[in-house]
């Protein structure tokens, strides 16, 4: 049994014209490697598309690849992810399944309040595949809590469990606040646990859960991921040993573009000094086909962020052949005054910047600016909380009111 495990392809995620085709390119390249490596089948553990109803261009390219795979006799098994699942059922995954291009393995029925998952058997290898979809707000967590584990564990054979959720024990420190499911909610003693959702590369074995794997995205989905991961990729798993008998895994990197992350600490520096520091980092560098990522953080000694001549730096990068240049200055403060420029960073960063920008505008007695920041963030957190599965509207209202009352000490 030899299969490829990919996840978080996010076709259509980048909006910038220069980057919007990157995830599709990465997918085409990955499929071609799978064919070359003669895998028996491919697992896509959620978020093939960035939305339930993706754009025509990306869809067309993907369908073309699936057809090639079908013609080569390589089956594709998927679960919907938090991005490409739709509660209405109107998801492209269903359309592709109806067309016979892939199989959604999240199948089963509810028996006595418990979810009894059904295995999808890969005819070529006999592998038995099942899994649980991902949903926005980690609503799939409830599915795990009601999963009939005994039913899954008693099945004999080579079993694969697909999931699109964060596992508590494997969450990276930077995502520790992300909602997650404990590994104990997953069935024990499967051959392979094919994960998605958390954009990290990790393969880990617990005592009763061997080969719990996150392959990371096929192409990084935002500025931070481009900085941290550089490239996307996937795993090929072979149940017979490969690499001279030392591993079952082969990591395949999908290198569409090079990346050059530049991190500048601007504390006690003037805009001119920051400019020079960045310039020093790019001067003489071969930037052909490279995405340049400039992150500046700290408090400027003088001036403001707009005094850093990024325009000229960008031009220099492009002159040296850079494919695309991005900057992140969300964490730049000025000792004189603050100016906010928001570009290419996470929603949390943007939210925090917006709050900081407007803090103190309405005077509330007893509120320090720090307290105002914390309370505002917590209020936003409570107000963005979604209704839980099975929670009635009045219960939901009540919960939100209680949380806010407690926060505001009403």
């Amino acid at each position, binding site marked *: 049994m030899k299969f490829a495990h990919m996840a978080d392809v996010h076709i259509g995620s980048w909006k910038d014209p220069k980057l919007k085709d990157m995830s599709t390119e990465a997918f085409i390249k990955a499929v071609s490697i799978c064919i070359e490596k003669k895998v028996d089948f491919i697992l896509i553990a959620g978020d093939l598309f960035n939305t339930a109803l993706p754009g025509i261009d990306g869809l067309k390219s993907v369908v073309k690849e699936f057809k090639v795979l079908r013609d080569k006799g390589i089956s594709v098994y998927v679960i*919907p992810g938090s991005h490409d699942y739709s509660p209405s059922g109107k998801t492209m995954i269903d359309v592709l399944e109806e067309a016979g291009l892939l199989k959604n393995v999240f*199948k089963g029925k*509810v028996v006595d309040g418990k979810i009894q998952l059904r295995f999808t058997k890969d005819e070529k290898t006999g592998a038995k595949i099942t899994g649980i979809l991902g949903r926005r707000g980690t609503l799939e967590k409830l599915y795990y809590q009601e999963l009939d584990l005994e039913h899954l564990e008693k099945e004999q054979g080579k079993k694969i469990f697909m999931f699109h959720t964060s596992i508590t024990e494997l969450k990276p420190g930077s995502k520790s*606040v992300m909602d997650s499911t404990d590994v104990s909610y997953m069935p024990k003693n499967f051959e392979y646990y094919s994960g998605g959702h958390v954009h990290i590369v990790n393969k880990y074995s*617990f005592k009763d859960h061997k080969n719990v794997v996150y392959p990371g995205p096929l192409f990084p989905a935002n500025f931070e991921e481009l900085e941290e991961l550089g490239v996307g990729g996937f795993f090929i798993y072979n149940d017979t040993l490969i690499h001279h008998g030392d591993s079952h895994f082969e990591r395949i990197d999908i290198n569409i573009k090079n990346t050059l992350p530049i991190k500048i600490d601007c504390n006690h520096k003037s805009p001119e000094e920051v400019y020079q520091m960045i310039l020093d980092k790019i001067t003489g560098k071969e930037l052909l086909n490279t995405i340049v990522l400039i992150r500046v953080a700290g408090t400027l000694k003088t001036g403001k962020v707009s005094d850093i001549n990024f325009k000229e730096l960008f031009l220099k990068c492009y002159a040296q052949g850079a494919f695309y240049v991005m900057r992140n200055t969300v964490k730049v403060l000025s000792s004189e005054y603050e100016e906010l420029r928001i570009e290419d960073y996470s929603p949390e960063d943007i939210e925090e910047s917006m709050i900081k920008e407007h803090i103190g505008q309405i005077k509330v007695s007893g509120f320090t600016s720090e307290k105002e920041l914390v309370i505002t963030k917590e209020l936003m957190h409570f107000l963005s909380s979604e209704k839980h599965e*099975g929670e009635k509207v009045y219960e939901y209202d009540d919960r939100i009111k209680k949380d806010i009352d407690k926060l505001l000490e009403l």
Partner: protein
Amino acid sequence: MGNLSDVRVDSKKNPVKGQIISGKFGEVFARQKSDSEFELGEILVCETLDPENNSSTSKTFFQVYDLQYGSQISQQNLEMISGMMLEENSDIEFMDKNLRNYKLALLKNLITIGRDDNVMMSKALPEIFSSVRTIKDSDLSFMKTPKNPIFLGKLRSGSKALDVDINLDGSQALTHHILISGTTGKGKSVLMSNILWDCTGKDYNGLLVLDPHNEYFLGNGKIGLRNHPSGKIVYYTAKNLIVGARSLKINIRILRPSHFGCLDFSDAQEQAMNAYYKDFGIKWLEAILLDKKTNSVFNDATIHVLKRRMMYLLDIDVGNGEVYCNGIFDFNAGEGSISNICDALESANTVIIDTSAFSGQVELLVGSLITTELFNRYKNYKMIDTLANKPVISIVLEEAPRVLGKDILEKGSNIFSTIAREGRKFKVGLIAITQLPSLIPRDILANINTKIILGTEMIQERQAIIDSASQDLSNDSRNIASLDKGECIISSNFAKFPIPVKVPFFEEFAARTLNPAAKTDNKKNTSYMGLSE
């Protein structure tokens, strides 16, 4: 004999058990009525009546702390009479035997209750020949349930429990630390289980439990904390993973030299750790394990010993230039564990860490990691003025002298001793459990403002507790020694007097709040979108 109507109680409503006859403040002698029985620890009430309308003007609570015989016959004659009974089978009968031979109790003043349930420290002696009677539930109407109650048991008078709940104010008692002391088998674990059960699910507190016997979550009998109806229990284990448990994994890169402060590393080893951290940052442990050199000069033997100890402590093997993790410490997992545990505590959960598979040192290291992160967070909350919104956190430490003992603290303070001294300012407290309180320094014991004292036979241990108690227990040594299983005395800054308590069995206590129907109702509304046949 004078008129005693002002000191006698109504004998129909309140049967007399004895009468005060002599003594001094705190050492009052009372004679037992022949048809009654005084017990050690028993609470007796002496009422002062208004002679006009025979109503009670005040009640003074006394507690029996010693018992002895009294007789109108000399010791020599008593011995002679006994000899005649034993050796000559004489059938001697005393005239007015109940008048001639009797029992005496030594009583200490507890409190005085004035009109309108006004509670005062006792400052006066009752009249001589005042009657004392057994305490009744209605005498305790002054005891109000606090805002955030922790239920500890029923009020006990001697060996009898009254139907009066004893609660401490949790938000106060938990931040000002609690000590639970007693010999093995006297009920420390049952009491702790009850406290955990009672506190769990209440928004004002979060509890961190380092459980070296893995007894609280699973429970020794049918019920454990896993059955708690609130569902606000987070359980970490490194052993068999039951559904709902979390596999305890801690990422090695979050470890810092300061986390090892509660373990017995030498000064040289500590300096080496700090030097490695300075040179290699978060990869300092890998550098030690892979024999990398620091810029500082250390004796080779120091580094070898440090490496060997780290390998043993963290359960790590090194070979072919690679590090292999076998235990809970890992490079590829557990990055968010400490943070998640602290988040859970901040959300008023009870977090139980099963440390039964660890050596004592690993247990302390894990405890130190969590506690350090948590304490730093709470200090920060205080700084930014948001501490008031946070729940009180209490850290349960079994065999507390391992981290709060004199010998360990002589080498320097650690996070637990810091919390013992400063934690109350930041709403972080300890529940220290031990059978050897004498090993804890006096200044730490003095900072623990609630002491729950279970039966303790060893005089040295009793004395350590008595010397640091919140109320005067100087006469209670015998009383403490005689405490039976499940009987305790609570001495607290937040209690009016040292309260004798009968602790209920855990299963009985937990069963009161268990509602087996509650969980099944939740399932009715759950739909599983996306699932198809």
